[in-house]
């Protein structure tokens, strides 16, 4: 029987991990209850909780192709284009319910990419990576685990290949081969939800040549394996979560986190190694993971739903909701937001079956989807700030609102629509601040820019995949130019 965990069970499972976490220069003995990290744990916990709700379970769960049992969709290998579309819809749903990055998609994307690449390596080299991977996958499904998908190496000098770096640890690499496994060293940057994960799945970060074969490795480790160290990244306004009251946090329940994950001579048993020096498959794994992950950014349309809702509320609280330019700006926000969703749905609906049996997104459309994501949330955020007004960044704190000395002035001079309490207006403005420039802006804006590859990475893929010859051929035909001209 699969243990489809609920939120409480998930939290309890995290408490059993012995993670080596650092923040603000100190070791965090209890990451689950650490106030800066806690909201991100709540967001992952939501992926467990909603899987038990009848009104969400059609998206949140799937049937395992290995065991036939009901599993959380985040541990599923896509078996049809319907599965791919449901993945897109799940992302939007969760973004719209949490207003932040819920962190669990990256492991799902890593597993789906590995289900294909391990199969293809085996076909070429007669290895048994796919068998190993499927055994690991079954373990993940049976225990309903959260996996961190770790791709981005520090990369050092960007003009140099891994083997040419001034420090070999700039890319994850093998330092020792043993009869029972390998020892690896390096680091992975920007690891979303790392401290909320049971497992870490490591992949190479770029295409490689034969000279880089020691860097062409993929494997999975328990997140508390000996030698793994997490250093939590700062977020804009993160210490709001340490202050008195809840209003200034904006989103009072959910959030996200990223960490630098250091692998300091960590042992990996052979049964958890899914690529070992097959340098010619590093690029394929990167591309497959990136394409799935570019689809995953449907979540930003979900966060956009929250931001649009908050903006409409503030327009009403300000008494500006009937102004034609405000209405038009909110229409524009919705237009951009639904366009984001369109790209993700399209690349899923146009997906196909790979040799391994896994369904894979249309990569051109996935890259178009993500390219839009690098831009539109910024414009949606700009419009939200336009409508919210400058008060969003000049508003006094909750403590001032509660102050016996100045609270009455805050109450009086920050009231707009007389039917709306000042506190209500402050709460909504803080939520907009949170998403567009606070802790959630890490996920909604900069992650939209650089997560799953920076904008130029998608442009290169788009250029590679459009059929330019056919476009030219038809253009020539229609205007009477010969094929040879």
């Amino acid at each position, binding site marked *: 029987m699969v243990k489809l965990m609920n939120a409480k069970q998930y939290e309890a499972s995290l408490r059993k991990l012995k993670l080596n976490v650092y923040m603000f220069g100190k070791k965090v003995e209890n990451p689950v209850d650490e106030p800066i990290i806690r909201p991100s744990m709540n967001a992952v916990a939501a992926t467990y909780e909603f899987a038990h709700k*009848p*009104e*969400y*379970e*059609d*998206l*949140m769960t799937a049937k395992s192709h290995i065991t036939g049992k009901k599993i959380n969709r985040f541990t599923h290998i896509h078996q049809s284009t*319907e599965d791919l*579309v*449901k993945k897109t*819809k*799940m992302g*939007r*749903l969760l973004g*719209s319910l949490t207003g932040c990055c819920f962190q669990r998609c990256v492991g799902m994307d890593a597993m789906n990419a590995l289900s294909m690449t391990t199969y293809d390596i085996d076909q070429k080299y007669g290895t048994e990576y796919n068998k190993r991977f499927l055994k690991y996958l079954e373990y993940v499904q049976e225990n309903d685990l959260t996996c961190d998908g770790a791709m981005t190496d520090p990369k050092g000098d960007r003009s140099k290949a891994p083997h040419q770096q001034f420090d070999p640890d700039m890319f994850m690499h093998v330092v020792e081969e043993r009869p029972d496994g390998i020892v690896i060293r390096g680091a992975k940057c920007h690891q979303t939800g790392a401290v909320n994960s049971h497992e870490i799945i490591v992949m190479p970060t770029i295409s490689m040549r034969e000279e880089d074969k020691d860097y062409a490795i993929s494997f999975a480790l328990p997140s508390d394996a000996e030698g793994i160290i997490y250093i939590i990244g700062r977020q804009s306004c993160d210490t709001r979560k340490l202050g008195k009251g809840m209003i200034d946090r904006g989103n009072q329940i959910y959030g996200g986190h990223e960490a630098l994950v250091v692998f300091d001579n960590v042992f990996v048993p052979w049964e958890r190694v899914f690529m070992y020096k097959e340098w010619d498959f590093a690029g394929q794994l990167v591309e497959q993971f990136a394409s799935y992950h570019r689809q995953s950014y449907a979540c930003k349309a979900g966060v956009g739903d929250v931001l649009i809702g908050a903006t409409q509320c503030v327009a009403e609280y300000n008494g500006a909701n009937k102004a034609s330019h405000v209405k038009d700006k909110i229409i524009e926000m919705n237009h951009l937001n639904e366009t984001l*969703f369109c790209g993700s749905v399209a690349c899923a609906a146009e997906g196909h079956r790979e040799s391994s049996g896994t369904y894979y997104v249309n990569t051109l459309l996935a890259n178009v989807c993500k390219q839009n994501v690098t831009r539109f949330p910024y414009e949606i955020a700009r419009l939200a700030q336009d409508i919210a007004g400058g008060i969003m960044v000049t508003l006094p704190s909750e403590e001032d609102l509660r102050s016996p000395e100045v609270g009455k002035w805050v109450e009086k001079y920050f009231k707009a629509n007389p039917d709306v309490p000042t506190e209500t207006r402050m709460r909504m403005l803080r939520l907009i601040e949170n998403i567009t420039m606070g802790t959630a802006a890490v996920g909604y804006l900069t992650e939209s820019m650089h997560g799953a590859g920076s904008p130029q990475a998608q442009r290169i893929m788009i250029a590679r995949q459009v059929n330019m010859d056919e476009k030219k051929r038809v253009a020539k035909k229609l205007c009477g130019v010969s094929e040879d001209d």
Partner: protein
Amino acid sequence: MTKKKKIGLKYCGGCRAQYNRVAVVKQAQQTLKDLVEFISPESEEAECILVVSGCKTACADITPFAKRPICFIAGEEDAQVWVEEMQQTLSEGT
């Protein structure tokens, strides 16, 4: 006492629901409380399945219920019509 009709309740995932599906079902449940009992769609006791979709795409997976009668709701008006039909049909049967 009249035996209530057991109806398996199946929701879509609700990614862009155009109305509050749970509230609509709660209202229907209240209106039909003497006639209908909503149960898990996976239960073999379900005499028919009510599929509640958030929009007209109606993407809920209904393949497991192929052998049972299925009704669809994709909006508040649909729900009202369905409730009235159930009231009429089940009241006539009592």
